[in-house]
């Protein structure tokens, strides 16, 4: 598929239930949710996933105030990824490093903050902060990472709705394969909980999860699922060519062996089963493997009635006869981290290449038969012999679909 083999050699993340891969993975295995109540200025108490990473670990208070939450998450993740990959950036040509950050959206939270800040001044635009522009521009979450780390190679964000985390990763790999950069820091981030608009829009669409217990609100494929839980989070990977990783004796988490991106072209929000199938099949073909070679599918599983039914059908049509393909998800633990989702959800599965464990899906009390999901891991994690392939789905509005397949490096 690629001229060069691309591998993941570092992971930096923050999720509502963990601020490092080891903590995140531990909580996935132990069934620990990160969903809680969150107070929004206009919506009041809502169910959400909130991160609690130390934002002053890599930024001054002044830089945090000047920047955005999405960028703060990105900076934390980038530093953690670099550290995890055991890379000394000072020994690299910083103009040869690319920053590729997937985002669902950016600028809504900044616009909301600005409107609130001038509300008491009768919306006099004289009081609009001069920082609004650098905060709200679409490349902000990637640009601030460069500012912070002194990286002078290309940086930009990839707007791809809820498929953005996968697409950030894919794009990073493409840029490495093209020889545009020699090291890529790629993945996705989200600050969506900072804008009431996200909650209000999903609520008015009838797609925001409701439950008396926040930890039980996100319940993919369960009969009683009723919507998504909006969360913040981030995950950035260090991507390198295999030969570069081997030359520096790097730890290799996985090799990216297949991917696909396609578009429904049928509706703004309603998913399309056939296109999802085509996306997964294309990724399998590019990886040159059969469906039964996959060990774990991390499904997109938003916990909306229609979304899960559609994805359940598309997975079933390709993998339904293969008992060796185990299905799980991450959103039941942390909600929907939007632009970060694809990257975070893949990251949580990478340790399975070492521990051969498939973590379970939370809150799956009554499997909805209409979802046609048969081999989903429930109640507790399971041990599987020699996990070799993980497939990660991430789909988004305006019909964008993405599938990533990674292989254990041996």
């Amino acid at each position, binding site marked *: 598929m690629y001229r060069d083999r691309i591998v993941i050699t570092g992971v930096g993340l923050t999720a509502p239930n963990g601020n490092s891969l080891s903590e995140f993975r531990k909580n996935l295995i132990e069934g620990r949710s990160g969903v809680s109540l969150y107070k929004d200025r206009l919506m009041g108490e809502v169910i959400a996933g909130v991160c609690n990473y130390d934002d002053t670990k890599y930024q001054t208070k002044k830089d945090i105030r000047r920047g955005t939450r999405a960028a703060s998450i990105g900076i934390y993740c980038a530093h953690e990824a670099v550290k995890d990959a055991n890379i000394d950036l000072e020994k690299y040509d910083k103009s040869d490093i690319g920053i590729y950050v997937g985002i669902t959206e950016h600028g809504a939270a900044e616009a909301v903050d600005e409107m609130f800040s001038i509300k008491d001044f009768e919306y006099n635009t004289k009081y609009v902060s*001069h920082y609004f522009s650098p905060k709200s521009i679409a490349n902000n979450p990637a640009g601030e990472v460069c500012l912070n780390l002194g990286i002078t190679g290309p940086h930009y964000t990839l707007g791809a709705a809820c498929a953005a985390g996968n697409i950030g990763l894919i794009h990073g790999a493409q840029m490495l394969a093209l020889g545009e950069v020699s090291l890529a820091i790629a993945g996705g981030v989200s600050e969506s909980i900072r804008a009431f608009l996200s909650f209000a829009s999903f609520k008015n669409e009838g797609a925001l999860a409701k439950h008396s217990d926040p930890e039980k609100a996100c319940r993919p494929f369960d009969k009683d699922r009723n919507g998504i839980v909006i969360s913040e989070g981030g995950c950035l990977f260090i991507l390198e060519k295999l030969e570069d990783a081997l030359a520096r004796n790097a730890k290799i988490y996985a090799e990216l062996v297949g991917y696909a991106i396609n578009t429904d072209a049928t509706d703004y929000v309603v998913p399309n089963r056939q296109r999802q199938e085509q996306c997964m099949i294309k990724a399998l073909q590019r990886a040159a493997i059969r469906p039964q070679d996959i060990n774990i599918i991390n499904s997109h599983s938003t916990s909306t009635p229609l979304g899960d039914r559609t994805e359940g059908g598309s997975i079933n049509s390709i993998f339904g006869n293969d008992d060796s393909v185990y299905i799980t998800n991450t959103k039941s633990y942390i909600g929907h981290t939007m632009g970060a989702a694809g990257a975070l959800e893949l990251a949580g599965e990478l340790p399975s290449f070492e521990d051969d464990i498939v973590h379970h899906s939370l809150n799956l009390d009554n499997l909805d038969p209409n979802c046609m999901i048969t081999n989903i891991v429930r109640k507790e994690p399971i041990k599987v012999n020699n996990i070799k392939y993980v497939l990660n789905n991430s789909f988004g509005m305006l019909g964008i679909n993405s599938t990533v397949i990674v292989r254990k490096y041996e």
Partner: protein
Amino acid sequence: MTRESIAETIIGIIKEVMPHDDCSTLQDDDVPFANRINMDSMDFLDVVLALQKKYKIEIPDEDFGRLRNMKSTLDYLESRLKA
């Protein structure tokens, strides 16, 4: 509103904008802020915006030059707030 209370407000705003700087050296004199604390142009604009919001006044761009040190800032604000 006394000159001292305005000075306290200014220092409070600068501390918020520049939490890592030592503001104890700021005095009612004509030494530029930037000589005593690490105030760049963006910090300066932040301070001006916060002063406008605090005192509900509009400070036109052509007056920004009068806000470069504590003494002239206090002189300027005193005259604006009396008006």
